[in-house]
Structure formats: C-alpha cells, structure tokens
C-alpha cells in the first residue's frame, strides 16, 4: 500500500496513535535508554572539565592551584560526583555491548560473550589500578 494513501469509503482511515508522553517509564530498558540519552550532557561536562584541567596545568602552577580550589567548591564536587555516576553507567553499557559487537573466534570456536565482557572489565580495573598507583605515590 502507498505510504500516504488517499482514504476513501473503500479504504478507510488508519488509526495512528502517538506514543504516550510517559512511554519511557513503561519498561526498565526504556528508562535506561532515556537516562543514557539525557546523561550525555554529563559526559560532555566530563570532557569540558578535563579540557579545563589540561588548560590549567599547561598555564602555570598558580592557575592549577586555582583550578583545584574551584574544584573543591561543593557545587562542582556535587556535579562531578553525579558525572562520575553517569560515566560509570555509560562504561557499563559499553562493556555489555562489546560482546554483541565483537565476534571473536579462538581455535575455530566463538569466545563466549561473558569472557569478552570480563576482559573489558579486567582492562578497566587494570587502568583504574594504574591511575590510583600514579595518584597515590607510585
């Protein structure tokens, strides 16, 4: 049938219903999806914050200290805690997606999805440990 049909008595009008405004509350997966979409703003903030840090470090010792002082402000701290939560949320989504996007074969057999996810999480833990070691006096 035509995409834009001419309705006639012999071709009655189709019923087109719009999704309800609150469709995203009807399933956990929909809520997670909308949360991911909305929280991209926090991911953008994370990048901006990182760029500001790099700028402060590259300018002078004083500007770096000023940046640290500004970062200690309760509002900035709160924003960064919320941002951390959403960055972790996005990272977990990404790691769960990885085995779906990657098909790895070893010895002719497909590597199980759980193993691909696990290797991602291990690499994440490794990178976190390395950063902590650098920060805490490596």
């Amino acid at each position: 049938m035509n995409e834009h049909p001419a309705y006639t008595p012999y071709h009655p009008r189709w019923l087109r219903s719009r999704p309800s405004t609150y469709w995203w509350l009807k399933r956990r997966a929909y809520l997670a999806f909308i949360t991911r979409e909305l929280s991209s703003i926090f991911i953008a903030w994370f990048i901006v914050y990182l760029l500001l840090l790099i700028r402060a470090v590259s300018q002078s010792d004083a500007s770096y200290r000023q940046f640290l002082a500004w970062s200690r402000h309760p509002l900035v701290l709160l924003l960064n805690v919320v941002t951390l939560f959403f960055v972790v949320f996005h990272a977990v989504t990404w790691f769960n997606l990885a085995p779906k996007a990657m098909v790895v074969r070893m010895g002719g057999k497909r590597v199980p999805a759980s193993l691909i996810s696990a290797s991602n999480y291990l690499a994440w833990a490794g990178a976190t440990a390395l950063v902590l070691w650098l920060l805490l006096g490596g």
Partner: protein
Amino acid sequence: MADRITMRVARYRPEDESGATVHEYEVPCPKEWVVLDGLNYIKDRLDGSLSYRWSCRMGICGSCGMTVNGEPKLTCETFLSDYGDGPVRVEPLRNFPVIRDLVVEIGDFMRKLVRVKPWIVRPNEKPLSEGEYRQTPEEMDEYKQFSMCINCMLCYSACPIYGLDPAFIGPAAIALAQRYNLDSRDEGNEERLDILSEHEGIWGCTFVGECTEVCPKDVDPAGAIQRYKLTAALEGLKSFVMPRSAR
C-alpha cells in the same frame, strides 16, 4: 486455575469509530489454549466481525504478532493460562498504523526490508557446470541465527526508536541484511553498506535492546546492529585512510 478467562480486545472499526475501543469477551481457558485460540473462539462463537491475522499456529509464519498485556507477543505461542485469572488485554502491535481491530499496516516494514536486499547478491553467477555454492558448517553458523527471523515485527513494536522516528530502518531489516552479509556465498556487502550506514540505518539504534528481548526466535537483532556498527566503522576508516584500489 479458572476454566474461563476474560479477554479485553482492542477494536477499531473505521466505518463507525474514530478511535480504538475495548471489548470484553469471556472465553474458555483450557491449559493448552493460547491467546490465538481465544481470539478464534471469539471470532467463531461470539463476534464474527473481529479482525486479526494468523496462519500457521506454530510460530513460523510471523502473522499473529499482537500486544498481549502490554508485551509484543506471537499469540500462537502465548498461553492464556500464563495470565492466571486474567483479564488478558489484546491490542494491535504498537508503532504501526491500525487498519482494523488487531490488523496493522505493514507496508513500511516491507518497503524497508526490500531496501536492504535480503537475498544473495552475486554480480556474476558461476556456470551451472561448476556445481553448487558449497558452504562449511562453520560458514553457515556465521549467519544461521539471523536467518531465523520470521518477519513478525515484534522487534519494531518494542523499539522506541522506531516509534519515535518511523524513518529508522529497524531491527529485523538490519538483522536480515546481516544474515546475507555474513553468508559466504553473498557479495552484496558494499551495496547494503550504503543503505545500512545511512543516518536512519544502524546509527539510529541506541542499543535499547528490547528488540532482542521480545524476539520469539532468539535472532538477537540488537546484536546484529551493534556488530554491523563495528563493520561500518571499520569500512569508514578504511575508506578514509586507504585508496580505493587497496581496500
């Protein structure tokens, strides 16, 4: 378990109504009855004007997809007894225009399906004298999961992206494109890449994952899409860094 159950069926009769209405019917509920049996009972005994699609009754034809208690389901494999004392709410598949009662208009899906060329594309067929195109079991395993799709469109009904942006090519069409892309006999990857890598193609998907959850054949369309995103990204990178002749 009750021996009868109430079915609340969404009706839309365009000659009389401007919107959907809900009608209640009481049907028998033996343990082997599926929702489709209930609808057939209504049609045969209670109200012959009820319209819906069905054919094989065994989860193969993909015709009887409807929304049962809010979930996209094949009504031929959804047991009435799973809903306890009821009621069981039956509505048409979401995200599609309704023609009448539980019958939805599937033209949009059919047009999209054809666009991704879900058939083996070979610019040059080899002569018959060279025999058939042989394939190892491993080569078949590459695409077999995606070949299980029965075009029931439950995945379109569960996909919020398709609901919000009907231009999105959708889960089943992409999974079926992958079914042929991964077939060792096929040479149509490049032709499909142009269609699948459009904005309304794979990049429209934001990995909600509900298409895979509702798929009655375990096709995993969400997996097919994510996998193709990686392929398309690598192809994009190749076309950027390598001359055409070296690809």
